């Protein structure tokens, strides 16, 4: 209980644990002989995550949400922008090494993110080996069993291989691995989307419990908006490499301001026939444009029914319209009055 109270205190303080400033990640794609073009996967994204908080990151496939998570951990070298952790900028190699003891990742696909030739205890123990976090073998083994206990695996599972487990259990192994270095911050990249509905709830609850117990901070990347709504304190919506809206979870669901967030949230299939029948969906026309040929100005303007000439000319500023509610739209005031 002490730990729990501690976490709540941290939330109250609203002390940012992670600050991302104008993060950019371009991939250069060859488009011809010696010609390459930047694919702007993430283009100037800024946000902060407070201690003990869960920030949900949603958007369609190809919007750059996974890239944000990976670039934050320097799995990709950022093309531009700054990442600050606990008041310190992560820049040099030694910073990164230190940072990776504090920030880890849970991957989407529990079938491909575990090495089939390693036993569970080796998989969970690998981060301990890499960062040399134990002095005796016994200590390593104890830590592995402790971690397995956290995620609800039995100690007799330690000697088994990943293929002997079901999807839900594999994801537990992946989570135990991410907890091995005793991190403060975990990037969860679609951790439940490969799981069956009945297993999904087990894993989501486990994320909740671990957060309470260990005071973790999450960046929760997912495309299932109901899952994100359930687990997040604040939610950020991305479209084509840019962040279009960021607000507390309840607020963004009740009062989305950006036309893209509106249509995205209205498209969520609600598991309730009466609500579903009454629900008027805002169906977008067309597909998300290729990030190689992103539209000028606001990236959403090609699918936006409120788009004007101004939207084609300049990218709207990402500004705070009410406390904690950021939106990037030229016409926020007009369309929400």
């Amino acid at each position, binding site marked *: 209980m002490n730990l729990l109270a501690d976490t709540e205190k941290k939330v109250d303080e609203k002390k940012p644990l992670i600050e991302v400033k104008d993060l950019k990640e371009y991939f250069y794609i060859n488009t011809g002989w010696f010609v390459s073009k930047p694919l702007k996967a993430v283009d100037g994204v800024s946000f902060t995550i407070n201690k003990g908080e869960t920030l949900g990151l949603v958007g*369609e*496939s190809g919007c750059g949400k996974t890239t944000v998570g990976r670039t934050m951990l320097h799995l990709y070298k950022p093309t531009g922008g700054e990442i600050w952790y606990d008041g310190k900028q992560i820049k040099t190699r030694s910073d990164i090494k230190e940072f990776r003891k504090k920030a880890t990742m849970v991957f989407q696909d529990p079938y491909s993110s575990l090495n089939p030739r390693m036993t569970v205890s080796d998989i969970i123990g690998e981060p301990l080996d890499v960062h040399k976090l134990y002095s005796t073998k016994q200590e390593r083994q104890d830590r592995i069993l402790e971690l397995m206990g956290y995620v*609800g*695996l*039995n100690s007799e*599972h330690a000697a*088994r291989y990943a293929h*002997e*487990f*079901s999807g*839900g*259990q594999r994801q*537990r192994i992946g989570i135990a691995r991410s907890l091995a270095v005793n991190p403060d911050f975990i990037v969860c990249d679609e951790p439940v989307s490969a799981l*069956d*509905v*009945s*297993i*999904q*709830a*087990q894993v*989501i*609850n486990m994320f*909740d419990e671990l957060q309470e117990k260990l005071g973790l901070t999450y960046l929760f990347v997912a*495309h299932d*908006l*109901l*899952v994100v*709504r*359930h*687990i997040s304190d604040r939610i950020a919506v991305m479209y084509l490499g840019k962040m279009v809206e960021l607000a507390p*979870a*309840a607020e963004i*669901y009740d009062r989305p301001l950006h036309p893209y967030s509106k*249509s*995205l949230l*209205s*498209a*969520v*299939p*609600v*598991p*309730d*026939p*009466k*609500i*579903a029948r009454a629900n008027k*969906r805002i*169906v*977008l026309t067309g*597909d*998300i444009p290729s990030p190689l040929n992103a539209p000028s100005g606001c990236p959403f303007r090609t699918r936006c029914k409120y788009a004007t000439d101004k939207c084609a000319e300049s990218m709207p500023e990402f500004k705070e319209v009410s406390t904690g509610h950021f939106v990037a739209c030229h016409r926020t005031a007009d369309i929400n009055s």
Partner: protein
Amino acid sequence: MALLEVNNLRTSFFTDAGEVKAVNNVSFSLDRGKVLGIVGESGSGKSVTAYSIMQILAGTGKIVGGSIKFDGTELVGAGEKVMKTIRGNKISIIFQDPMTSLNPTYTIGKQLMEAILLHTDRDSQQAYDRAVEMLRLVNVNEPERRMKQYPYEFSGGMRQRVMIAMALACEPDILIADEPTTALDVTIQAQILELMGSLQKELGMAIIMITHDLGVVAQICDEVIVMYAGSICEQGTADEIFYNPCHEYTKGLLRSIPTTDTAGRKLQPITGTPIDLLNMPKGCPFAPRCEFAMKVCINHRADRMRINDDHDAACWMNVKHGVQNGEIDLDELSSDGNPKEKKAEPPKEEKKEPVKYTADNKNNTGSSNKGKKNKKNKKKGDESVG
């Protein structure tokens, strides 16, 4: 007469490890112009049911019993010749993954025209016109130009539209959609569901929607079948299934999905892991994970019992309905050595259930204090496979 009648369908896969009973005594009927949803987890047999209707099972799969009647014609054992006139013509199917279900080496136009030329007596010019018309119907822009393109030039949502166009080109009576939107984003999913709904009304066909997403079911289905481990555990109208679920598995599913008002609370997951189809238990397949499992559940599989005209469920918790309808003979059961009180008690608890499950409070009810927990799940949490 119903358009499609499936009776006691049994499909098995004969693997080296033994017979996998993927579909076990599945019966349902589908009327013209209706949308039937089949929900279940992976491995529950929902796709195999569809593939059995189309008879496109993989090599080791075989229909081992039951009947499938389409418009009065028996399809089980009818032979390839008959099936060729049915497949793609009377019954069409859309697969889950639009990325892999189109042939990358042919143009979209050629693939669309193939079905039309095969099943109708149109010549190639008429088939071309029809293909363009179909593309227009599913909202593909510039259909003439698109006809000449290859699948890699289409996005996921576009490819799924092409699949729908292909499936509908011969005006089938039934469209089977096997997780048509699982690989797509929510905004594209909304487009596709909207499209399917409007086409269904326009053309008056019946749809079998196979999905694991209860949200999709709530959106477009009139009737719902819930499957678990190869058999139907509950069947009814969408409203009955969502607001008055009578099988513990359905209840568990509905409780475990996050909704807008579960934020800040714990979800109530179904404990345990899905069952191994190679080692099916004797009784109810859900019993090992069911927190209300009774002795009778372990030893006897419940038959489907009628709850009301629009609803039936295969769960011993509804034994009262079963006895009233004369579907269950209590004496027969007790002769197998099940103590009598095990069967007599459930109705008492069952009475309250429908009242509790109303639209507003279905999420916070459930596993509180009732039910007999004498055979509780062996272990909380996952259990290893193999």
